[in-house]
């Protein structure tokens, strides 16, 4: 097809010009596909991590893809002002700040029995008067079984591989931290109450004080209640919701408290590896007390539609070289986007109706 343009000065045939356009547009489209990961199916995406958490029967729609069983609470964080030395976040200035949070059990099935929950979690959102907030999600294990998000994914894949029951054993053979975690899981007592559990950040973060000095830390919420272990032979006999029922009653009787304690890394301590516990003699700062005053069922509770993304941090706190918070943030977002699109599968209870 001849057009007037074919006779113009430079004289390159029209077909070459169209080819150049197609190449240019195609190159940008390919670059976009590469950025999106469509050309590299091996890329570890947050969606893959979330998929790997699903039980064999598929994910339970409407619920968190992990730590699916939970209960909401409200309370306060009573800061004593001590942590101002290490962080300029307003949350650490002496005062009381509203908290909304969630006690939970690790695992993808929201109907699991409480007695089978080895790993228990505590998630918090603390709001400062300057509208900045701190979100964190912790567990009761003293260290994490896996050193990197990639290995975490490999372990999930190995666990799901029903054709090769030796896969997890092989994984454990090359990952001593998983064996140590197994030893903790097999020997640590099960507390009778969430109020007796200690919850640990495991991941490290960096605090910055008013002078601009940076300090790598981990933290723990340490219960003020004494631990009463459930005898292991009793665990299976307990009510499937005994933890939630106990806590509801306990908080109705009296507020329950945990001390927030920061552990300060020394130079050279492993901040990027949550499998490595720091030496016991590291300096600690008690920053205040979490006071839990009200328990609410999750279906209608305020913690249900919140993502306790551990990278939502106030000014004066930031992520460290620990690779997990970023991976968790990415995966939690996928979990959140999926479950919020399925809310019809997790009905809210009508006000006044008995759940």
């Amino acid at each position, binding site marked *: 097809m001849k057009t007037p343009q074919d006779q113009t000065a430079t004289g390159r045939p029209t077909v070459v010009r169209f080819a150049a*356009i197609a190449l*240019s547009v195609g190159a940008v489209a390919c670059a*976009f596909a590469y950025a999106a*990961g469509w050309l590299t199916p091996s890329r570890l995406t947050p969606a893959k991590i979330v998929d790997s958490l699903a039980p064999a029967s598929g994910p339970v729609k409407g619920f968190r893809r992990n730590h699916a069983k939970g209960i909401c609470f409200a309370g306060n964080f009573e800061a004593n002002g001590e942590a101002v030395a290490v962080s300029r976040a307003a949350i650490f200035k002496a005062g009381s700040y509203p908290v909304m949070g969630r006690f939970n059990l690790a695992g993808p099935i929201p109907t699991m029995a409480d007695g089978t929950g080895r790993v228990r979690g505590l998630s918090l959102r603390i709001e400062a008067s300057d509208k900045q907030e701190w979100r964190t999600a912790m567990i009761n294990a003293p260290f994490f079984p896996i050193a990197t998000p990639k290995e975490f994914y490999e372990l999930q894949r190995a666990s799901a591989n029903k054709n090769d029951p030796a896969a997890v054993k092989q994984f454990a053979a090359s990952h001593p931290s998983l064996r140590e975690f197994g030893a903790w899981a097999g020997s640590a007592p099960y507390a009778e109450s969430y109020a007796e559990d200690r919850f640990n950040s495991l991941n490290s973060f960096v605090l910055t004080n008013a002078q601009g000095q940076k300090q790598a830390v981990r933290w723990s919420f340490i219960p003020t209640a004494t631990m009463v272990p459930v005898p292991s032979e009793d665990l299976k006999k307990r009510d499937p919701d005994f933890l939630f029922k106990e806590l509801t009653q306990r908080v109705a009787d009296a507020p329950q408290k945990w001390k927030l304690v920061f552990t300060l890394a020394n130079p050279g301590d492993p901040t990027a590896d949550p499998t490595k516990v720091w030496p016991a003699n590291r300096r600690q700062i008690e920053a205040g007390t979490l006071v839990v005053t009200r328990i609410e069922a999750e279906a209608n509770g305020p913690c249900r*539609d919140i993502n306790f993304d551990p990278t939502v941090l106030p000014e004066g706190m930031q992520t460290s070289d620990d690779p997990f918070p970023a*991976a968790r943030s990415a995966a939690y977002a996928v979990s959140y*986007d999926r479950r919020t699109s399925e809310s019809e599968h997790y009905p809210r209870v009508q006000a006044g109706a008995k759940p």
Partner: protein
Amino acid sequence: MNRPSMKFSKLQRVLHWVMAIGILAMLFIGVGMMSTIDRAYLVLVGIHKQLGIAILVLALLRLVVRWRSGAPSLPASMSEPMKLAARLSHVAFYALMIAMPLLGWSMLSAADYPVTLAGMRLPSIVPASAELHSILWSAHRFLAFCLFALFLLHFAAALFHAWVRRDGVFETMTFGRRGGR
């Protein structure tokens, strides 16, 4: 609104190219951040939010400038359907440039995420709601791919004007002295 000039005003050309880079970066960062769990994820999400707000401000400014300065008329050699396509693509661009940041912001608001700009907390622009979040999130994602498709079309059309038709339309947005034929 059209005026007999052969180029867009200098402010319009500067806005166009700055925003072209910004929007293309947003599209690449958007799909990139959704596909990684590396520490880069947090950096990309951070840039995506700040740049999104910047584009919203620039898009509103640009809309005002477009309204006041208009656009050079399209050459008479262009067929009516082509002219219509050109005008509709501009309308679609303005709609998306303004809608995408607002959808992103409102999607974060619906999820009750804090939205901060340079350390300052911005207000939530919609109430917290899981159902609303889901609708807004899906819209943000779908329209992002529409915007990229529109960009590819726009890019192809620009090159078509520059290399095949050579009718001066491409030069209305360039900084060279020649203003087309």
